[in-house]
């Protein structure tokens, strides 16, 4: 469980800092997944996390979505505590209620899409705007149709998720996340479960979003070309720590660390 005693009351963060991890550690039982992680993401920045499986990349996204709790350290979003909350001058682990409010700024797209099978495509997208943001159904549906057009699925609003291909489901999931107007979008290996010929369509939708919005993005992917196109910064992870970080042009062509070089050649070999 999160120990507020270990949470340093960190210095105020700069105004252009969107996400701030301070000395974040995450353990599952004896297994150390993240250790002493400091990570800053600026407003509007696109940061890609690469590295071998089990290196803690996905855990970072899950912590930021409030699906896991930090073991120690703090996470702030817009300078406000996300993993914790202040109560009588002390930092205590965030309650579910605090998280629910804090999460509204953050959207996530999952590897397995996780669409709701009992709802139509349109309802998948409108459910949260109506129930959480209090939008009228008509407004939410109008917005959902815009988003569906953007991801190229304007004809599918009445379909059920299981009637769509994996690539189409993932594009619906992207539209669903965007319908909540997130300031931060977390993409967790969004093409890893897709057949190769469906990957391109999903990545193009994401490139489009990156080009036309100023949403801050945190991306975990094994698609290196996509990472290179979309990122401002790439972080190479191994064993729960950042091995190397650099602009994509530098990291992919001329990495400083041997571990990064090994990983990249192994990944590029595959494709």
């Amino acid at each position: 469980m999160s120990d507020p005693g270990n949470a340093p009351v960190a210095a105020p963060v700069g105004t252009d800092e969107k996400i701030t991890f301070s000395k974040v550690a995450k353990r599952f039982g004896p297994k150390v997944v993240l250790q002493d992680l400091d990570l800053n993401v600026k407003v509007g920045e696109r940061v890609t996390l690469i590295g071998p499986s089990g290196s803690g990349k996905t855990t970072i996204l899950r912590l930021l979505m409030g699906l896991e709790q930090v073991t120690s350290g703090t996470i702030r979003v817009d300078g406000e505590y996300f993993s914790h909350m202040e109560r009588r001058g002390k930092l205590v682990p965030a309650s579910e209620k605090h998280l629910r409010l804090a999460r509204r700024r953050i959207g996530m797209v999952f590897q397995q899409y996780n669409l709701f099978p009992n709802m139509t495509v349109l309802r998948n997208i409108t459910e949260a705007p109506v129930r959480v943001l209090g939008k009228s159904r008509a407004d939410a549906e109008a917005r959902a149709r815009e988003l569906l057009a953007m991801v190229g699925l304007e004809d599918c609003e009445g379909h059920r998720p299981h009637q769509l291909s994996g690539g189409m489901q993932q594009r619906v999931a992207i539209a669903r996340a965007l319908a909540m107007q997130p300031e931060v979008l977390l993409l967790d290996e969004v093409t890893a479960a897709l057949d190769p010929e469906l990957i391109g369509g999903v990545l193009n939708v994401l490139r489009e979003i990156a080009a036309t919005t100023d949403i801050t993005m945190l991306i975990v992917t094994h698609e290196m070309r996509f990472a290179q196109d979309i990122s401002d910064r790439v972080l190479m992870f191994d064993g729960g720590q950042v091995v190397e970080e650099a602009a994509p042009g530098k990291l992919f062509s001329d990495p400083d660390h041997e571990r990064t070089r090994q990983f990249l050649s192994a990944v590029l070999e595959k494709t």
Partner: protein
Amino acid sequence: MTGWDWGVASAAFPLMLKGLAVTAEATVLGSCLAFVLGLILTLLRLSRVPVLAQVTWAFVEFVRDTPLLVQLYFVFFSFPVTLGIKMSPLMTGVVTLGVHYAAYTSDTYRAGIQAIPRGQWEAARALSLPRHRVWLSVVLPQAIRRSVPSLGNYLISMFKDTPILLTVGVLEMVGQAEQAGAANYSYVEPFTIAGFLFLVLSYPSSILVRRLERYVGPR
């Protein structure tokens, strides 16, 4: 006792149809109660209120581990005395069947809820849906859909358990058969008809349930 008498059979048949209406009434009301109460029991068992969850669990175990007939007698004879609740024999039967089967349907719902992939919960949380919304919009619709075939099987079981109500004086189908038998000094015809009617209604129902299983199975 020398074989089949069509005269007795045709005399018994209209009475038994009348009894069948009572059987149907008990089954429909009892299963409505079982389906609703079972869901409530499940939610109480999964609730994070510690004592409530354990008491509900104990109640479900108690109901599952005691015979239906004992429960029926208990409600029929002791409720009027201890709780001051007096019900007609039919209502006594409906309540007993409903509560008895609720203990079983509650397990069905629970399995249905536990079968929902973790990703569904996580997606709902990632969208900031409030807790009650997660249950109402995401979890229960999927869990109940998965539960339908199993609930159908319990409905059929309950239908076949209704003759037990004759022990507290409900004139359902088998009760009518007994009376018809006594009136004509011949039990073979009415009980054969009763068995036949149970079969004719149960068998197509179980085929229907199997169809539902296939329909509900893959999402």
